[in-house]
């Protein structure tokens, strides 16, 4: 049994300890806001915060998350009120929307670290195929 705290809720899961956190969130806990994109920590779709740090959940063993505070897109705010979420709505950023939870989590964690504007953008190595980059720039630069 592995004990997890996700979005301030405690869970116990019985799973191979080497299972990436991403798949525990998605397939076992049913928290599907965190996305699978590449499985090799390149695209960033799986980004979550673990003890406030940005992590690629696709390569983060679930056993290593035990005892830590995991925040996913579902737990970033209760009502989409996080400034990054509000900026994303204001600038109508998402197209297909699939990469956006990862983008927003990366942005939120960079904000938490006290970063701004271009600094945040340079840190976001995430992949979007729809081409929302233009609007992400607009959204991030006003945060």
């Amino acid at each position, binding site marked *: 049994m592995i004990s997890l705290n996700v979005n301030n809720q405690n869970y116990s899961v019985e*799973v191979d300890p080497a*299972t990436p956190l*991403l*798949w*525990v969130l*998605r*397939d*076992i806990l*049913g*928290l*599907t*806001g*965190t*996305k*699978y*994109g*590449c*499985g*090799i920590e*390149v*695209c960033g*779709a799986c980004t979550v915060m673990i003890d406030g740090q940005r992590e690629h959940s696709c390569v983060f063993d679930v056993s290593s998350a035990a005892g830590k505070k995991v925040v*996913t*897109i*579902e737990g*970033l*705010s209760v009502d*989409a009120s996080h400034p990054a*979420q509000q900026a*994303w*709505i*204001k600038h*109508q*950023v*998402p*197209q*297909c*929307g*699939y*990469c*956006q*939870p990862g983008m*927003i989590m990366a942005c939120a964690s960079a904000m938490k670290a006290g970063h701004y504007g*271009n600094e945040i*953008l*340079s840190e*976001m*190595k*995430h*992949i*979007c*195929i*729809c*081409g*929302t*980059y*233009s*609007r*992400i*720039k607009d959204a991030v630069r006003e945060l």
Partner: protein
Amino acid sequence: MTMTTYTSTLPADEIVATLATQKLNRRGFLKFSANGLALAFALPMIGRSDDANAAITTQDLANAYIHISPNGTITLAFGGAEMGQGSMSGLAQILAEELMVDWTQISVAQALANPVISYTTGGSSAVSRRYTTLRTAGAAARELLVAAAMQETGDSNRDNFKADNAKIVYLPDTEIWWEYGELASAAAGMTLPADLRLTNPANFRLIGKPLPRVDIPAKVDGSAKFGIDIWFPGMVFAAIKHCPTIGGTLKSMPAKPSGAIAVVACTASNTRGSVIAGSKNAVAVVASNTWLASRLAKKMSVSWSLPVSTANVDSAQILTYAQGQLGSGVALIAEPLPPAGYTPQSFAPVIEADVAKAIGTPTLDATYTVPYLAHATMEVLNCTVSIVYSGTTPVSCEIWAPTQSATAVATNAALLTQLPASAITVHTTFLGGGLGRKIEQDYIWQAIEVAMAVRKPVKLTWMREEDFGHDQYRPLALTRVKAKLAGGKIQAWSYRTVSQSITAQRGRLKAGSIDSQAIEGAIHLPYELGNYLVEWVPLDTGVPVGYWRSVGASINSFAVESMMDELAKTAAIDPFTFRYNHLKSEDARALATLQAADLLSSSWRKQLPAGHAWGVAISQAFGTWVCEVVEISQPAVGSLRVHRVDCVVDCGTVINPASVEAQMQGSILHGLNATLWGEAVFKAGIATKLNFNSNRVMRVSEMPTVRVHIIPSTNPPSGIGEPGVPPLAPALANAYARLSGIRIRKLPFFANATMGGI
């Protein structure tokens, strides 16, 4: 911010069942009372992606409806696919306009997709080709509500009633008014008047406004459900493992690995469910979670049978073969049309000789090459299937799929399960990108097979390596253009393109006929080309090919607009001026688009910093003109920095300018990725670039500044999802030639190009 909402359930699912059985009246409507007013109608079915030559057809059964409930809820049932292009919102925007309701007063529901109500999303057609139908439907619902108010007052003078803000107001006494909901049930019994009083476009309140999209709130908080997000307790998870070699089949069934729930052999499904007789080309491993299933699949040893021909699926071999076909393959003439008494075949030698004579020694003779390309939608292919059994007999089948063609999903489910259509339910989820790949049915077919084998609800997922390695790729193409210049004008033009036909590979191209998609972007050019011909040589290879955003236009515009630039340089004429000098007088929209791009970019082009250069290209696809002007620099050898792209678009009447802008921004990124790095490579039957570490794509910090200018227009709306892609590649190549003197005629640009950042 308030906005209209997206709901995942319909107010009255029984409406869909009713639609299945009743025909529309001769005016194209079916109205009935269903807890309020339901007005059903038929949105045109678009066959663009199914069949190269399909026209829009209308049908006598409804596939959409508006529902107005007694409590005033107004819902548009949406039967298409929302994959980021905004059509779910665009359709509601058109309806709200004529219904005289505010944007916050209408909801959009994804219809429970079934063969009745769903349609294929493709061809940049979702909104533009349904504009008139939706306006008419909105107006019809409004006039039925007015008729109900007329009955209540006993006043039959239509001019005494005004529909406004979801109310009908009685003008002689404005104290008398009704909410739409109050009239909805009575409206269902009214007769549709002859005059539907369509709104004068000059008075539009909503059409043409940048309204917020309905699907965006759910896409910032993790609540939007894509296909891959379908989850319920008790379901099992499957990962697919294809024969790594394209064309290979399963030799023997592998043993079930320890830890797996099952291993299921899956049928090789060429596209859209047409099956290669009896063969299996993949196995699915079923386990308690997707990661476990994929790990077991990866480690499992499977023996495959590899026909000798699979070795021919090889990039180097295919290129050699295509070069041979470019020289000596039998061509079909696409333009000019054969005169009476000739077939495309018999006309070929005649026009070829004629144009060859006019060209003599060509001024320029260049061959342009574009590679196979993968789609790489961010959401990998996946499908969830739940089949209910009575004993060993299937009773019902429910499917959740990120699909551009729910109709095809339902058809395949009926084929496999042998269930009647009424026992099959298909939910179209949000699509994490479609790009043409999710029209295909291979992943759907596999998921149904797995669900039938394990008799449990199952979600089948393709890991990213399977997604890149078993795509239906954008075809490779080689194009040779020969042109004769004299006095700065093109006197003759010979255009010969060799490419694989998507339609032919699916067995739907009549022998000896031209695949219209293979030549789009090469014909109906806006230029005077003197004595000219456009010919296509079909190429038959084992690489599975499919529809990639903008299809043939992405191939041909690169050759046409690169050659135009090369000719301008040879003639020592400015690229804009050279194009103006060749525009046909009847192509006023091309001229206006080019002029607007010229004007938009003129100030920065005049003040370019040292080491910077610009390039321009224009093209028309799906009825929409797009001109792009790019600015680049090269900080170091092998690197490139794209600073800006100015984009001018004429897509006729604009429904939502913010959506047009988003589609242009997206198309430009799509074009940049393809031009700079995009290439699917095959070695002895195996795709070699299988994840994003070997398929470079642009990051946010590298994105150029994009400005989009939309030409105001009262022409009918045309597509916006794809037409922004084709001009990017030639505009970039033209800029690079100006910068470096090096003409890039083979894409991708340079495989290891690095990008400058912010």
